[in-house]
């Protein structure tokens, strides 16, 4: 799919409760306090809902950075 960068950014910012200036496209789990292992699950849930996709168990636990996430979304149907 084509990933609208604004939509993706809004989704991540909302899910992780980031301030606008905290968002960086190369962000990964642990880089900010808000993105811990618990919040990561919230993030996965939000991305699924916003983009209409579904992660399997493996993806849920390994897609722990924004670049990997975008990459996966782009390859998804």
């Amino acid at each position: 799919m084509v990933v609208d960068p604004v939509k993706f950014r809004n989704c991540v910012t909302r899910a992780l409760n980031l301030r606008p200036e905290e968002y960086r496209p190369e962000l990964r789990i642990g880089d900010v306090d808000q993105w811990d292992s618990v919040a990561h699950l919230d993030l996965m849930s939000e991305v699924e809902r916003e983009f209409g996709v579904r992660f399997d168990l493996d993806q849920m636990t390994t897609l722990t950075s924004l670049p990997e996430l975008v990459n996966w979304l782009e390859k998804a149907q």
Partner: protein
Amino acid sequence: MTKNVVLLGDKTLSLIARNLNSQLREAGSTWNAVDAGYDTWLVAPLDQNGVLFAPDTAAWAFVLSPRVLENVPDIAIRLDATLERLANFKTPPTVLFSTLFADPVAAMPLSNNIERHALAGKLNERLLEFREGHPWFHVVDHLSLVLQHGVGTLYDARYEATAQLYFSPNGSRLLSGLWFRVLCSLERPQKKVCAVDLDDTLWGGILGEDGPDGLQMADSGIGSAYRRFQRSLLDLRRNGILLTVCSKNNPDEAMAILQSHPDCLLRPNDFAHIEIGWGLKSEAIARTAQKLGLGLDSFVFIDDSPVERGEVSRALPSVDVLDSSGDPMRLVGVLSQYAGFDSLRQTDEDRKRAGSYLQEAQRSEIKASAASAEDFYRSLGLQLGIFSARGEQSGRLHQLLMKTNQFNLTAERISAEEFRELLGDPHYMVVGLRVADRFGDNGITGLAIVDRRRPEVWRVRNFLLSCRVLGRTVEGAFLSWLIGRAAKSRAETVELGFLATERNQVAYGFLEGSGGKRSDAGDIWTFDVNRAEVLPPHFVQIDDDQVR
């Protein structure tokens, strides 16, 4: 001063704690949720050095998942042991315990689940029993939330596998919404009074227009939605909330409905106070508060009209105002979504309260002076459109003539045919009135038929307004326009014919206050166009381009 509520469960509760805290912070609550850790509900109560016994812990919240019914052998015994331990505390904290439910996805669902549901039922009964004997112990209804949303929405196997979460992120959000209400109910005083409008709130339809037979509150059709709403108000009453009426209607007519309409479930005795009249609703509610000896901040007001809701909100900001317009099928939902009446338990005293209301010394100040009433009317942005009636509006205007009973000065009924003739008769001026304000357009809601055969006296044969637009200065504006128009046409007086009927007291009330001169027989009210006793409210915009 922050108070901690410690969440204990059999599964991971950190998502719930996090969601809960974000809601608590946003609401400025003094509660703070703390996660006791994974699967600690059985052991934490035994650890005197743990977070449960810390000085700023004010409440324990047991948030259990269906897995306890599957994974904990002798769950009934374990539960009993936990409750016994709690009962033995010298100074127990507030304890909030969730009800249990069985997960519907299992092997052999036709038999397994029935047994698990029964087990959950037995355990929940045990919780309710314990609650009876211990006022600091409360039961939190997980089951209703689950029934409403379904395990399919609340649970996701991937999250259980990854993080031992029974409730998925979505489920955690919904669950924390419930717990947020629970904690708020412990913190905020409960609203005590529910003041309800009648037309299109307690029943479908407008009594003044549709008549008693036109009201909808029967068991089938759209009426059944209003009936269910009435039942839920009775639920409130049963649980100690006082019900009152606040309606704009003829008192006798509306009371007759409450007293004897066969479909009305609420009778006058169900209400602690009844206010039916034509004055400002904020004043009616203020009187109700004084009569009941309760502060205005314990009131909730339900009305379908944005104008009325706005008026009350403005004058009485501490009253919570709920909107009953919209789909009647959703009326009960409006009550259930509102958190003001939330309470985790009812006492016998609560239940008795509705029967004999409290006489407390507390009173509030209300600014229902003439000045603020005018402020309110001004804020409406009233626009009146007055137009000469033509053939194509004849239908609607004639209908208005036939249906309007309350603000109708003569209640003269004319046949449709005769009415059409009047429209074409040059000696008669027939004007219609359209009313709109910032809340919406009420449409064609007024009519005046003026006999101008004698040019120096305008004889107003019919002057009427739909009860929908009364009480907003429209009456005065319409009449003053008419008088001004008469002056422009070089007439000297305007005479309004009046005939008292059973239903038009509100029209008489208006004439009394209008400054016109009443004839001895009471059948004519005369206005001198040069004295202009009836002043147009300067904040009403009148557009009369369409008048010939």
